[in-house]
């Protein structure tokens, strides 16, 4: 299914240790973060109570189920310590991080932000929410956002750039001028405006970012399509009677994928840091969404609580660094011009 050249490039990517390891770290952490509810939660994974087994991270149980008074969700942390629960011979198995990212743990001693402890490994923020849990959920949000953004803007960049490069002439000229005007729009104002009208939801932010993100790649694709259109093999296919669509799809697009693959990790980095900075400024996802930008903001606000700044900065830094390594490796492996540049 993949051509020999593709497989060779893939092998080359794998032989670049740093990129390959970084790639897997990112994949594993992302997959883990997809199951955040079962990794960081103050509901137990499994619990035993009154001879029955419950799975509170998967299913909602009201406090009444466990002899409480209300129909709201049971407070498992409190329940665990009640004498009735212990008398029933009940037990709970909690996830690795025993905190919910949205919940304030105000019953601990001291005033938030709380320093790291056995209960809160990375401490808590100013609302006494667990930093470790928020980091994990924040990673999921950033990564999902950046991935969806990168994929959609790549598709859009390929389509727009491809049309411009292949059609050439007036289409290209007019398209290029329109893009120049478009890219001159002040991004931050557009975000603030649209955000204040339609609300700063994940979808709206994604849409606004998408309006601008595709432009970078479209330049590359325009050039690639333009170059490949004049390659002899494209003309040979034309001389064979192949139609435009066939030529675009089979002869030009596969040969134009190199910039897409090599730029993709960097688009990912761009997406993560853009969302983080927007959150930092307060124009991103609304509170109390766990987000790295908001945590950075807190780190700046509470300089006497260095765990806040350290954990978010280190998390952001390592994610971006790993993604850069992947991008660097991908470029070395897939770009024919720098075939054996790094090991």
């Amino acid at each position, binding site marked *: 299914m993949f*051509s*020999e*050249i*593709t497989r060779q490039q893939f092998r080359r990517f794998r032989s670049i240790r740093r990129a390959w390891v970084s790639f897997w770290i990112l994949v594993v952490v992302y997959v883990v973060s997809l199951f955040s509810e079962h990794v960081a939660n103050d509901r137990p994974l499994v619990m035993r109570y009154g001879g029955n087994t419950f799975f509170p991270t998967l299913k909602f149980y009201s406090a009444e189920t466990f002899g409480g008074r209300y129909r709201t969700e049971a407070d498992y942390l409190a329940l665990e310590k009640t004498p009735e629960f212990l008398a029933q011979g009940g037990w709970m198995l909690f996830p690795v991080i025993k905190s919910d990212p949205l919940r304030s743990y105000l019953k601990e001693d001291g005033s938030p932000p709380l320093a790291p402890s056995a209960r809160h490994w990375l401490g808590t923020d100013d609302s006494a929410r667990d930093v470790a849990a928020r980091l994990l959920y924040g990673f999921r949000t950033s990564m999902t956002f950046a991935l969806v953004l990168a994929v959609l803007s790549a598709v859009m960049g390929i389509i727009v750039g491809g049309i411009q490069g292949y059609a050439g*002439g007036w289409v290209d000229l007019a398209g290029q001028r329109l893009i120049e005007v478009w890219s001159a729009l002040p991004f931050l104002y557009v975000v603030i405006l649209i955000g204040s009208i339609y609300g700063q939801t994940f979808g709206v932010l994604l849409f606004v970012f998408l309006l601008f993100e595709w432009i970078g790649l479209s330049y590359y694709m325009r050039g690639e399509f333009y170059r490949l259109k004049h*390659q*002899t*093999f494209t*003309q*040979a*296919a*034309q*001389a*064979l*009677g*192949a*139609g435009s669509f*066939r030529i675009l799809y*089979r*002869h030009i697009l*596969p*040969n134009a994928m190199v910039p897409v693959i090599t730029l993709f990790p960097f688009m990912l980095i761009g997406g993560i840091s853009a969302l983080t900075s927007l959150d930092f400024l307060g124009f991103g996802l609304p509170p109390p969404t766990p987000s790295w930008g908001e945590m950075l903001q807190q780190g700046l606000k509470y300089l006497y609580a260095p765990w806040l700044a350290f954990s978010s900065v280190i998390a952001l830094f390592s994610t971006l660094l790993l993604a850069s390594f992947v991008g660097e490796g991908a470029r070395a492996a897939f770009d024919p011009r720098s075939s054996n540049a790094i090991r």
Partner: protein
Amino acid sequence: MPSADPTLSAAPLLQVKGLTIRFGELTAVDGISFQLAAGETLAVVGESGSGKSVSALALTRLLPPPPACRLGGEIRLGDRDILKLDEPMLHKIRGKEIAYIFQEPSSSLNPLFTIGSQIGEAIRLHRPDVKDPVAEIVRVLDLVGIRDPEKRHRDYPHQLSGGMQQRVMIAMALVCQPKILVADEPTTALDVTIQAQIIDLLRDLKKKLGMSVLMITHNFGIVHGFADRVIVMFRGKIVEEGPTEVVLRNPQHPYTKALISCIPRLGQRQERLVTIDYSTLAP
């Protein structure tokens, strides 16, 4: 001498009348007329920029659309005028009736697909009725003299030598069983021994398949013994035309004379090559 004069046998397969090709202000081809009979081999000889390649591309309108390039005149293939056809009709003619081989075999093949899949593309485009495309691919590869075609059809272009790549290009052109094969300097990018092989192959295939060949070249050495007739082009015009032997023995136009005198001969010390003084030549 050409065996029998095929031009007289039947109505010409392809008839070009007053073909003019303009790129903006520049007139690349200025009202040329020629015809190609079934089974005939016609060589178009001329220097770079004389308009021979664009004329060949114009036969199936492979040139950029207007306003970049304007075509005039008439190109009759059977009872159709190619200059008046729409795109879908052209797609049916390209490859199926008039097929091309280009100068650079190494860049004429898509580097990402096996040669078999590229020949298969030609089959899919023009012969959808073929039941077993792989067998057909193997057959044409064998026809153009690729050894071990059952294995080699899974090779990628970069795994083949230049001569073999050109054989694959020929196979790709032949698999659609075209009536006319246009070979645009098919040997220019190859070294001399391979050139001879490819020319022999083309001559062989022509005999076997009975198609017409339009050979574009600037090398009179190839023309001799291969083409039935020769057209000499110079600055967008046909300056000389006739049976190969006649033109080679007794060139009329100064440009043809100069070109023929540039062919190196065995046992004869070559002095400086003849140059053409363009100011004295009426185009």
